[in-house]
């Protein structure tokens, strides 16, 4: 599936990501978590090719990412960011259909796929003709997800997709997203800074600190056997009860 092999990156002499390897398990949700500046954004930007690694490589289904196949590889990745990254001048429908049109899908196929996806993300079909400015935060994210899923990508990458939403809308969307990931059996990489959200989604949590993977596994493993003092501190900062406290 998606694989990072000894990927590293420095900016102006400062190492933001030490050589790191990571494999996403097919059909599973991997959550990348860590404090700000830990390198999680850098890692995601390396995967989608917005940054080029200083060493190592990224590969998708055995094929390495290079500057030459970058665009073709991107068509096989779905990418969702805060607020959905929707283009304000295009209607929801046009945002979602943009790449399919470039790939010369015919109108019937596009419209069928739109109906399918709207139902999947539970977006009322009449909202598709609205512009982003006329949609709520949660609706925008649903449209953003439709856009990412349009070409049925091999992997879905989500960069803090719920950070800007208020708690009730967020909980609603979290439920729906989890259901969708399970139904589609997508390989998912979700970046968040919220441990509750991470635990809710993750088959595996990958904790990043100061440009390295500090520990990975399920939350229970992290709690039971923190790999370092940093893991313990990070978890308690997230108000996750540690083993000693649970026993009390």
């Amino acid at each position: 599936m998606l694989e990072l092999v000894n990927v590293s990156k420095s900016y102006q002499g400062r190492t933001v990501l030490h050589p790191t390897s990571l494999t996403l398990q097919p059909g599973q949700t991997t959550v990348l978590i860590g404090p700000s500046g830990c390198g999680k954004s850098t890692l995601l930007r390396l995967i989608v090719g917005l940054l080029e690694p200083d060493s190592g490589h990224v590969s998708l289904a055995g094929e390495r990412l290079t500057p030459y196949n970058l665009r073709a590889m991107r068509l096989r990745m779905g990418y969702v960011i805060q607020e959905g990254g929707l283009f304000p001048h295009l209607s929801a429908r046009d945002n979602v259909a943009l790449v399919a049109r470039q790939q010369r899908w015919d109108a019937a196929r596009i419209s069928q796929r739109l109906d399918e996806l709207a139902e999947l993300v539970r977006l009322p079909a009449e909202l598709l003709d609205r512009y982003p400015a006329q949609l709520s935060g949660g609706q925008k994210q649903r449209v953003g997800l439709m856009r990412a899923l349009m070409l049925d990508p091999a992997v879905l990458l989500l960069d803090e997709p719920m950070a800007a939403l208020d708690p009730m809308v967020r909980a609603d969307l979290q439920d729906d997203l989890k259901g969708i990931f399970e139904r589609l059996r997508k390989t998912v990489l979700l970046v968040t800074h919220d441990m509750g959200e991470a635990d809710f989604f993750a088959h595996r949590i990958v904790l990043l600190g100061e440009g390295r993977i500090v520990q990975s596994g399920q939350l229970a493993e992290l709690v039971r056997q923190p790999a370092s003092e940093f893991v313990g501190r990070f978890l308690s900062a997230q108000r996750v009860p540690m083993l000693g406290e649970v026993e009390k």
Partner: protein
Amino acid sequence: MKRALFVMLAFAGTVFAQPIAVGSKEFTESVILGEMLCQLLEARGHPAVHQSDLGGTQILFQGLRNGRLDVYVEYTGTLTQELLANARPRSADDLRRLLAQDGISMSEHLGFVNNYALGVPRALAEKRGLRAISDLRSHADLRFALSNEFLGRKDGWPLLERRYQLPQRPTGMSHETALAGLRGGQSEVTDVYTTDAEIEKYDLVILNDDQGVLPLQHAVLLYRRDLPSEVVDVLRSLEGTLSTETMTRLNADVAVRRQSEADVAASFLEEEFGIQATEPTQSPNERLARWIAWATIQHLLLVLVSLTLAVVLAVPLGIAAFRDARVGAVVLGTVGVIQTIPSMALLVALIPLLGLQEPPALVALLLYSLLPIVRNTYQGLREIPTSLRESAEVLGLTPWARLLKIELPLASPSILAGIQTAAVINVGTATIGAFIGAGGYGQLILTGIRLDDWALILGGAVPAALMALAMQGIFTLLERVIVPRGLRLARG
């Protein structure tokens, strides 16, 4: 059949035969003489066009050298002291030889002398007993308002000041303003031309050049050596026919008695050569209305054509500047520098390449339109949020699709605002077209200033202001069509 063919050929002949191009400077005497040359040529069977009110000696002389003009009236002093001053011609033969190197011939004198002179109001001259320039030396309190040209010319004020030891410190301004100042009492002495109608109109006394310092300015024809000899013969039939008194009277007919230059020229040709005026004369109001209508078309064409070309050129330049920082520095720097070139200098520089009339005016307007459009395109693209630019990239859109479907639509409000700025500025700047015979409202304004005729000045200035307002309005409407609805919603 044969006859039809002949008619067609004759028609084609009139369309394709190059008419003789007559030029004139932007003062009344020159325009009358230009009209006179045109009507004389037409009456003798040579089609001619008059490019009147061209903005300055250099524009006419360069136009003649480059073959864009065939003939105009020049003054000998201007030739020796200004146009060919560096070659220091010592005699008339010297002058002819120098002109021949540029493919130009000079006629004999037309008859009148139009010298620079100093004029003072009659009442003042009588009160102070002023008769000659040397009398001014003992009246240091007199205020001088001189035309900028006279103030700067080597054969003008600097020469007088040195030779007559004049103590006054003159102020420079336009000829018309200087005369207005004299009338209003803000100044007491100004430079005039000896054939000037203003001498009569403002009741001035000409101070005698008692030391003979100012060079004699004989009027002569300058024409291209390659003109057919029969045309040259027609032109040269004017030699010796215009006395100083006649020329002064003709100038006053226009400036004081408000006849058109064409009518004044026609009546002289009728007296002198017995040529019957062919064109029916129009009433002044009719003439002004037609002129404004024609100027509107010319002005609008200048603005729209130059703006269209500027958009085609400037938007890609703005995109290139955005894509590559080094290209950006060069492009933005260059269009910025272009903006600072004075319009007159730009026009004079363009004449050797593009000649007179519309082409150089269009190119000048195009160049002046670049800055707002390039800068707003660049700025509009730069202001697109990084998250949107990266979203477009990660989606896997091709660079072209990103530009056309995402970046340009997002930058469209800024680009459109740049084009609007250029359009409004262009309406104002297009008045410079009049300096090189491209017509437009500037022609009305310049002529109005020359003739001190407010109807003409307003006839140019008011429609120009209205056109600028109309541009503003049209672009506000265009914004509704061009800027995507979603963007307008997003901006609230």
